[in-house]
């Protein structure tokens, strides 16, 4: 009884495995993978655009909740998407590995026996002249693999076709391994630094940082980057950027001698498998806030976030050391222009005529409430607005409880720091995949048989091309010619 159920279980497992590794299943899984990838391009994804996702939640809360249960906002890390490609790769391995072993055996084996009836082949001719020796010589010269029997030759060529085909599919597995290594041992983070500041690669220096499942912050590369200068060049007519260039002093162990380096959009800094990319830029206005007595309560560069292509930027200045606390909601325009319907907007991304627009609030900044706050936003729930002011460069505004001076600006850059130890495997996989694909596409696989006529003189010639590849007819014609000559 037990053996019977065991047998049943085993045979149904085997049946499942055969189904999974069948070409039809692989084809369905392949198409399914394509279809499953579609929703991720139609709905915003958390990994790419978390803001758009939260906007979607605000405007359609009901549908968003439902879609979120289906993981529509995390398609590419969802179990249903993963299960499709994992099944596909299991199916691929189950199909390709046995074929590889078979192919390796086939390379060492001799070509199969010459079939009895050659006249059924794609090309067939009976010749009154010619003999097996001259045919063999011709075939050998062209590197055919040959099986010579008493009165026949079986020859084949084009093993590279299957070799390339298998190499292509094995390379896809290598790419998947590379992707998996990257997501397990990788790391990715963003840090905004003002020009003039130094970035030290420790977790606290980051604005956002995430580690792969098997990676910890201990493995961060110990480097430091000091931004010395940032130059953005813009098209004078359209205001479109044409070049970004960050000059930086870089030390590969914090404290060692610094080297000066240049970072551009398409040329990141490299520290081993960690790369540092120049990702975005903006302006930080420099302000000084004094209390009534004239004592400095806040001084420094405040990072503002760009809102449009001309770098109209917004941000918040928080001064917790004053009594009562003071906060400013600010807007910085590098090239000031009055917007329609009031307000201000920047008309060019370079600083030509800067303004700092402020709305001034007093009360409780809410910094001690324990709830984390964005440094770019002011929580005004316990505050009161006491004024509005537009400041020109070096202008000071007295708001009663104190004063604020707009003293200048400095550019900031957003550094994206990424470590992906798997990408080299993905790249190798990609290169081998292309080579394999080309190899299998441009190799013709074919067989040629030559058989001595038993009754008459002369030979019988036949050929068969795999996948109806062209050119066999000409090849046989030249073999026939070669035998005669």
């Amino acid at each position, binding site marked *: 009884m037990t053996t019977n159920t065991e047998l049943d279980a085993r045979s149904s497992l085997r049946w499942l495995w055969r189904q999974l590794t069948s070409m039809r299943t692989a*084809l369905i899984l*392949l198409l399914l993978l394509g279809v499953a990838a579609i929703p991720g*391009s139609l709905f915003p994804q958390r990994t*790419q655009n978390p803001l758009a996702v939260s906007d979607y939640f605000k405007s359609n809360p009901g549908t968003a909740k439902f879609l979120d249960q289906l993981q529509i906002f995390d398609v590419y890390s969802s179990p249903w998407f993963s299960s499709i490609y994992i099944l596909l790769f299991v199916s691929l391995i189950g199909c390709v590995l046995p074929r590889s072993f078979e192919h390796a055996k086939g390379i060492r084996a001799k070509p199969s026996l010459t079939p009895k009836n050659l006249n059924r082949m794609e090309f067939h001719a009976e010749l009154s002249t010619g003999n097996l020796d001259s045919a063999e010589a011709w075939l050998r010269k062209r590197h055919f693999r040959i099986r010579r029997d008493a009165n026949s030759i079986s020859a084949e060529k084009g093993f590279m076709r299957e070799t390339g085909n298998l190499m292509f599919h094995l390379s896809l597995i290598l790419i998947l391994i590379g992707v998996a290594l990257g997501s397990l041992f990788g790391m990715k983070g963003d840090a905004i630094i003002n020009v003039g500041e130094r970035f030290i690669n420790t977790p606290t220096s980051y604005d956002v940082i995430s580690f792969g499942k098997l990676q910890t912050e201990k493995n961060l590369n110990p480097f430091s980057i000091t931004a010395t200068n940032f130059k953005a060049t813009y098209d004078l007519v359209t205001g479109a*950027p044409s070049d970004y260039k960050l000059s930086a002093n870089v030390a590969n162990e914090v404290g060692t001698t610094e080297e000066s380096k240049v970072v551009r959009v398409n040329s990141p800094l490299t520290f081993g498998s960690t790369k540092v990319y120049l990702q975005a830029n903006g302006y930080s206005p420099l302000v000084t806030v004094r209390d009534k007595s004239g004592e400095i309560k806040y001084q420094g560069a405040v990072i503002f976030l760009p809102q449009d292509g001309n770098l109209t930027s917004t941000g918040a200045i928080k001064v917790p050391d004053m009594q009562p606390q003071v906060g400013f909601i600010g807007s910085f325009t590098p090239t000031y222009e009055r917007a329609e319907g009031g307000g201000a907007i920047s008309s060019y991304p370079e600083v030509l005529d800067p303004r700092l627009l402020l709305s001034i609030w007093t009360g409780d900044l809410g910094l001690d409430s324990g709830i984390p706050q964005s440094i770019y936003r002011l929580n005004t729930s316990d505050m009161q607005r006491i004024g509005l002011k537009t400041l020109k460069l070096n202008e000071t505004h007295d708001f009663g409880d104190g004063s604020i001076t707009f003293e200048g600006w400095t550019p900031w850059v957003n550094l994206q720091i*990424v470590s992906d130890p798997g990408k080299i495997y993905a790249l190798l996989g*990609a290169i081998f*995949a292309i080579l394999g694909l*080309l190899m299998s596409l441009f190799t013709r696989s074919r067989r040629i048989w030559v058989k001595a006529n038993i009754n008459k003189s002369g030979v019988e010639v036949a050929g068969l091309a795999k996948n109806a590849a062209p050119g066999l007819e000409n090849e046989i014609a030249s073999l026939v010619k070669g035998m005669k000559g």
Partner: protein
Amino acid sequence: MSSTNYAFISNYAVYSAIALFTVAFFAHAIEVAFSLRNSGDKTKFDFTRTKRSGDLGTVMVVLAFICLLVAVVSRGISAERVPWGNMYEFSITGALAFTGAYIFALWKYKIRWLGLPVAISVLLTLGTAITVLYVPSAPLVPALKSAWLVIHVSAAIISGGVFLLANCIAATYLILDRYEENGGRPVWALKLPTLEALDQLSYRLVALVFPLWTFSVIAGAIWAEAAWGRYWGWDPKETWAFITWVAYAAYLHARVTVGWRGRKAAWLCLFAGSTFLFNYVYVNIWGTGKHTYSGL
């Protein structure tokens, strides 16, 4: 000459190409229409009568190809970069690649019957390009300043041109297949190749260009690694490039391994080609993501 001069030359060359394709369109239409001859109770085709008209069509297409080449090159000179930084430029370069693929196939496989659909497709592409998509010649945003722009986008354009041609052939197959099922081909289609030949031709084109498309996706990944810090991020353009790749991979497997031929294969081919078109239109115009740059 200044860059504006070159920009003007480019625009005139595009208009000239449109004019030439219009002539080619009429020449091919006349070729088909006037080769009809009623002999007794049967309608027959006699292409010796309209050979000149067909030749004229071919000459016009070749001239239009040269005009497009001039348009693309001078656009590149005026912008001081390769001319595929926006959708307008991608369209005219794509039309050039498509026409080139047709001329190559004409020389190699004798497929003049494709002249009419080719002329129509190119006219539509160029017409949309110059009316809807046109933007003045300008330098590139920093992210596009890379040698990979040349490698990645040129591979994508050539693949696109050939995919489109394969799609035209697959569509022709399906139309003729329907006719043959319902009693026979109409007279205008009598001179077209056999269904089997069409089937083979569209397969060959796809098989030939699939490695190039694979390369284009990989080159894009390498570039993305250099510019954006990751080689693959499921950006909408990347996602659709992947879908196209998967669809053509499925098509090739269906043919080679499972043995699909004819109607089923043609539908799959059309589906795969339409994912490429969708990627081009949807992601560029309505999509968001890193592949959308200002001014289309």
